[in-house]
């Protein structure tokens, strides 16, 4: 690179080469930070169980247990080893996918945590990917449309609708959808319909007849063909979609409205460029980073929403597993689930950060 200077006090570039492109360095730093965060989170998950007042083994067995039983149980759980040792054996196993034994495990029916979690994780993953593949494009599209047509009737209507959707609990949406599907058969004979004037009741019956007969209890059959599984999951996926589309769309709109107010967009108009060119050629390249962040954050909502939706639809996924394990206080399973959820969340944020880094011209082409 040559030395460049200008009379106006411009920049001076030094010659020579750098070891690592600053972009690569930033990405590696971010990856490192992600790993460290995950490590700290695992410690947090482990110690939050440790902080229990009293003894866990005693709490599980109850007051009437004899001292020998408690000691034996404590030994079985490995609780007599020092905490640090236990942590490292746990995390060491976790890295290999071995999370130890479930507390529901018996010598006759050994159940490792991995055995329990494995198929459930796949189920949840299937549901999540199915939801995301529909919800993300829909949300981004709606976000773009409402940003482009700000304050139009369309924008305000969507805004009101999404404000309602994000305010209500997921199980409400889920049960309303179930109700609608079940009304298909029951509406005409229900008390509610009988209290309406005849024409309204008939309208209601006609409308509910149009609703497809979706399964309200997700039945997972591992041998079922792909499209049958998708059909079974339509209601849960729809519930999740409604929740995350609302969040994602609002955030996308906010990002784009901010970008469209940038001075260089006004400049594009003053240069005589069409609106389409201003939006797609000028605004969009600067939008990838914030939109990636928005999408990543909302996929995190998906993680949380999945727990409630799985319980409502009795879907055998990792969310329902965690809830059941909490109720039965099966600690190894709860810890493993928490770790998996946290790792997913951290990974999503990491991907968003890396996209933001890689699409930033200041980092791609440093001074």
């Amino acid at each position: 690179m040559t030395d460049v200077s200008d009379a106006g006090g411009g920049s001076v570039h030094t010659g020579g080469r750098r070891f690592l492109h600053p972009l690569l360095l930033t990405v590696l730093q971010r990856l490192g930070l992600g790993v460290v965060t995950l490590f700290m989170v695992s410690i947090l998950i482990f110690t939050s169980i440790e902080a229990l007042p009293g003894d866990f083994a005693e709490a599980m067995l109850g007051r009437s247990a004899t001292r020998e039983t408690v000691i034996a149980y404590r030994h079985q759980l490995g609780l007599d080893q020092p905490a640090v040792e236990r942590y490292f054996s746990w995390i060491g196993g976790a890295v290999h996918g071995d999370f130890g034994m479930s507390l529901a495990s018996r010598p006759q029916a050994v159940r490792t945590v991995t055995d329990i979690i494995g198929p459930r994780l796949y189920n949840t993953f299937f549901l999540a990917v199915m939801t995301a593949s529909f919800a993300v494009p829909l949300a981004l599209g709606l976000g773009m449309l409402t940003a482009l047509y700000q304050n139009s009737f369309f924008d305000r209507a969507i805004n009101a609708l999404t404000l309602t959707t994000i305010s209500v609990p997921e199980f409400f949406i889920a049960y309303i959808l179930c109700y609608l599907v079940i009304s298909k058969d029951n509406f005409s004979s229900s008390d509610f319909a009988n209290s309406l004037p005849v024409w309204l009741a008939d309208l209601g019956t006609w409308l509910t007849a149009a609703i497809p007969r979706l399964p309200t209890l997700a039945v997972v059959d591992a041998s079922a063909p792909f499209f049958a599984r998708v059909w079974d999951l339509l209601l849960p996926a729809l519930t999740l979609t409604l929740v995350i589309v609302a969040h994602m769309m609002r955030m996308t709109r906010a990002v784009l409205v901010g970008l469209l107010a940038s001075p260089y967009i006004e400049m594009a108009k003053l240069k005589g460029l069409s609106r389409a060119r201003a939006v797609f050629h000028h605004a969009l390249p600067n939008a990838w980073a914030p939109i990636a962040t928005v999408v990543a954050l909302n996929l995190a909502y998906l993680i949380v929403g999945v727990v409630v939706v799985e319980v409502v639809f009795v879907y055998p996924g990792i969310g329902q597993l965690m809830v059941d394990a909490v109720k039965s206080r099966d600690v190894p399973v709860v810890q493993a689930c928490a770790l998996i959820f946290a790792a997913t969340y951290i990974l999503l944020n990491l991907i968003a950060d890396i996209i933001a880094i890689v699409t930033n011209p200041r980092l791609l082409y440093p001074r």
Partner: protein
Amino acid sequence: MTTLQTSAAPHRRRSRWRRLGTELRKAPVSAWFGMLVIAAYIFIAIFAPWLAHYGEAQVISQPYQPWGGGFPLGTDQLGRDILSRLIYGARNTLGIAMATTLLSFTFGVLLGLVAALNAGWLDQLLSRAVDILMSIPSLIFALLLLAAFGSSVPNLIFILAVLDATRVFRLTRAVAANVVVMDYIEVARLRGESMAWLMRREILPNILPPLIAEFGLRFCFVFLSISALSFLGVGIQPPTADWGSMVRENAALISYSDVTPLLPAGAIALLTVSVNFVIDWFLHRTSGLRDER
């Protein structure tokens, strides 16, 4: 801007109440709707024992009675009056959510102010700790801690308060950091004012609007979390009346096209929508910003 008046009469500022009155009159329909609903809920929560016909755990009849007769909304799966339970549910759920939000705000604002004022190793430590805590989604972390500590009401309040305090901390620290660099803080410091004095008299009054809005948002979030946890069965335990668990208990009725389980869920939804309307209006008036959550 007031013009210079040659007469001796001073220009009197309108009192805070009069300004509030003007603001209220200009508020949009949605904000009015929200405020009325919130007022109604608070009323029901406070006067629950006088409003409800039966006790919250009182079994009075057969399970799953239809609407009508002595039970305007029917009975639940154990034969208790649903309307009474709904009324008591307002008191329980709202009360617990309010307590949690107040607690989380106390922690979060205090720590946030301390971090912003110190801006040294303490700030770094707190911020890193909060980052780690926020790397686990709230609901998941709550489930984890409830598995360890059990689902009693004090546990529930404390756990959610601590988890929520992280968000409050972040916001407080961010807005306080903007104020801390101002000259009048520097002047106050040089005067020898203590940190507590600075926090209470100089910084806090200047960051109230975003904090108030955040209080509303946090309340909604806590309220929804408690409902969700109760719905899952790990939150408020029976026989305490709570909207979330009422949904779960009566969920079977959906199969018979009975809307009864949707009522407590609807009550939850109505409150959060109303609070959001009011917050929307408040933010619009104070800063014109919105939509980053």
